[in-house]
């Protein structure tokens, strides 16, 4: 029986049964797999780490897209860094008021593979006329971009070892702040603090330097093993994360789509952090 065993942590590891292998990369420099698991549906792993599964990706993508977009309330220009599987794009596309979505992905092959093997992730979003797809290094893109161009930036990066590393750097957050409009907001993927508490500490330090209001919000994504994961939040307006449920509910109703995880109540509650995370970022 073939089993995928995650290699994130030395002392504990989650295992998924591989019921059918759809794709396995042949290069020596990285190991990408897409396989089927009877419970999780299609699963993509990169270098021994779970990237996304069909069964629970909605939690991650809804929380990372709808929380900043509905908090902002009037976003027209959205930047997605990474997100090659297309699911973040899919969620952003559901906001009718968004006029332009720039998606910067470093690896064209990830997009092609996801279209072929994870079609439910993008669900046709790559055809949306509002999309400008840029195949480039996210860091290079934000450096070259003009100031004040975006209302929302979503950094949907991989693990901070390897190509994703610069997307957790002080420079990256500074550049993102520069290209955001003054009332803009940025969110980032920030790992599972139960196992990687240093990541919230590092992000607080680096991102906190460039945004007047920096914090985290949380959701549990079951296949990101270890309890809640955190999303980094950066804006210059603390009021953006203190909106009442009613305001968010009104905006969601106006946007006119339904969700499977996101609710205005969860949105508000997700900014409440456990004591151990608060202590780490104090």
């Amino acid at each position, binding site marked *: 029986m073939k089993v995928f065993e995650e*290699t994130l942590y*030395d002392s504990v590891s989650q295992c998924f049964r591989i019921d059918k292998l759809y794709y396995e990369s042949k290069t020596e420099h990285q190991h990408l797999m897409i396989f089927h698991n009877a419970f999780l549906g299609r699963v993509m792993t990169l270098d021994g780490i779970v990237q996304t599964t069909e069964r629970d990706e909605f939690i991650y993508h809804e929380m990372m897209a709808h929380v900043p977009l509905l908090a902002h309330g009037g976003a027209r220009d959205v930047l997605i860094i990474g997100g090659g599987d297309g699911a973040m794009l899919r969620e952003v596309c559901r906001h009718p008021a968004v006029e332009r979505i720039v998606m910067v992905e470093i690896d064209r092959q990830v997009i092609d593979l996801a279209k072929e093997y994870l079609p439910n992730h993008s669900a046709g979003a790559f055809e949306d006329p509002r999309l400008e797809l840029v195949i480039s290094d996210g860091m290079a893109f934000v450096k070259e971009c003009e100031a004040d161009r975006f209302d929302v930036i979503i950094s949907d990066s991989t693990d901070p*070892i390897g190509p994703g590393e610069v997307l957790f750097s002080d420079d990256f957050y500074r550049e993102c702040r520069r290209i955001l409009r003054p009332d803009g907001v940025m969110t980032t993927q920030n790992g599972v603090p139960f196992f990687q508490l240093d990541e919230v500490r590092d992000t607080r330090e680096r991102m906190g330097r460039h945004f007047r209001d920096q914090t985290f919000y949380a959701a549990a994504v079951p296949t990101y093993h270890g309890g809640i994961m955190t999303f980094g939040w950066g804006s210059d307006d603390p009021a953006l994360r203190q909106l009442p449920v009613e305001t968010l509910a009104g905006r969601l109703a106006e946007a006119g789509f339904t969700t499977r995880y996101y609710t205005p109540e969860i949105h508000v509650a997700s900014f409440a952090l456990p004591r151990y995370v608060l202590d780490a970022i104090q």
Partner: protein
Amino acid sequence: MNPQAKRPVRYGATPEEAAFYRDLVARHGSPLLVVSREALRRQYQSLQHQLPGVSLYYAIKAFPHPAVVETLAELGCHFDVASEGELELLRALRISGRKTIHTHPVKKVDQIKAALRGGSTTFVVDNLDELKKLTPWRHRVGVLLRVAFRSPSAAVDLSRKFGCLPEQAKALALEGQAAGFQVRGLSFHVGSQSTDPATHVAAIEACGRLIGEINREARHPLATLDIGGGFPVDYAQAGFDFDAYFAPIREALAALTDDLHLIAEPGRYLVAPAVRAVSTVIGKARRGDRQWYYLDDGIYGSYSGQLFDHAVYPLQVLRDDRPRHPAVLAGPTCDSIDVIAEGLELPELEEGDLVIGHLMGAYTAATSTRFNSLNAAKVVVVE
């Protein structure tokens, strides 16, 4: 290197043996390194039998060849990696980093990152500075502390270059745990081709005591003992008694608390007996009273281990004619140190004759050079 060293030579071969070597050369050319998958399996099973309850991590550096790694992986073997290249070899074979430990005590930060990307999460260190390099990943990784025990009998003493002193281990373990690391246990490597089991036994006993002492104060008990590699092969072909060698090591392990995870990192023992070198006489000359034979492989090639590894490989010529004459076997390069063996007594060899080197899997191809722009011996895998 000592080409004068006393060296076992076998004269003659069975017709099947001779035909086997000639057929390989006819098909693949010369020089060759012939890997026997069956011999490799036999060595693995023999070591499992000698060291029951010990998880074996093949030290890839000994002979970093995909066929060797694959054959061992099929048997459930784990792997000791010490570089990014070794991890890439595993990745190409789709062997999970979960089956590895990273044993190089000194690493660049980029090498740590590459190891983590390769799924290798257990790292060996022997001092605080090296431990600190792992700080950004301290919650992810497990750490083994390498302790030095000098080995008088080993051909290659590896406790000179690496390992903390036994008396430093406790402070290192406690400081590591206080800094948030998962310090899993201790490791040692007594040196390679260690023919006296007393060194392993003393190191196992000392580590057992150290672990006991440390665990009285540690917040997380150390739970792994990695006894390294160093297990010898019988280069002298003098009937080395492996059962007698392993028995005291087995006893020392059995005397440890039985909840320890035991690990070993054998290189030589697994792979040396699985590989033979096949070289061809390409020229001869009479110099003084000695007959010189020039082979197409030598000290800069597969026999590099005579220089770097201090090994003296048993040789075999396929003829058993009389009389025998004083002879020298030299390698193909223009350098005068490229001499494999002197002081041999050999039957008259002809150009095209084959010379076989035995026990040539460990630290042979791994250290061979391209000096004189000569090609390395081709590796051929047989069942």
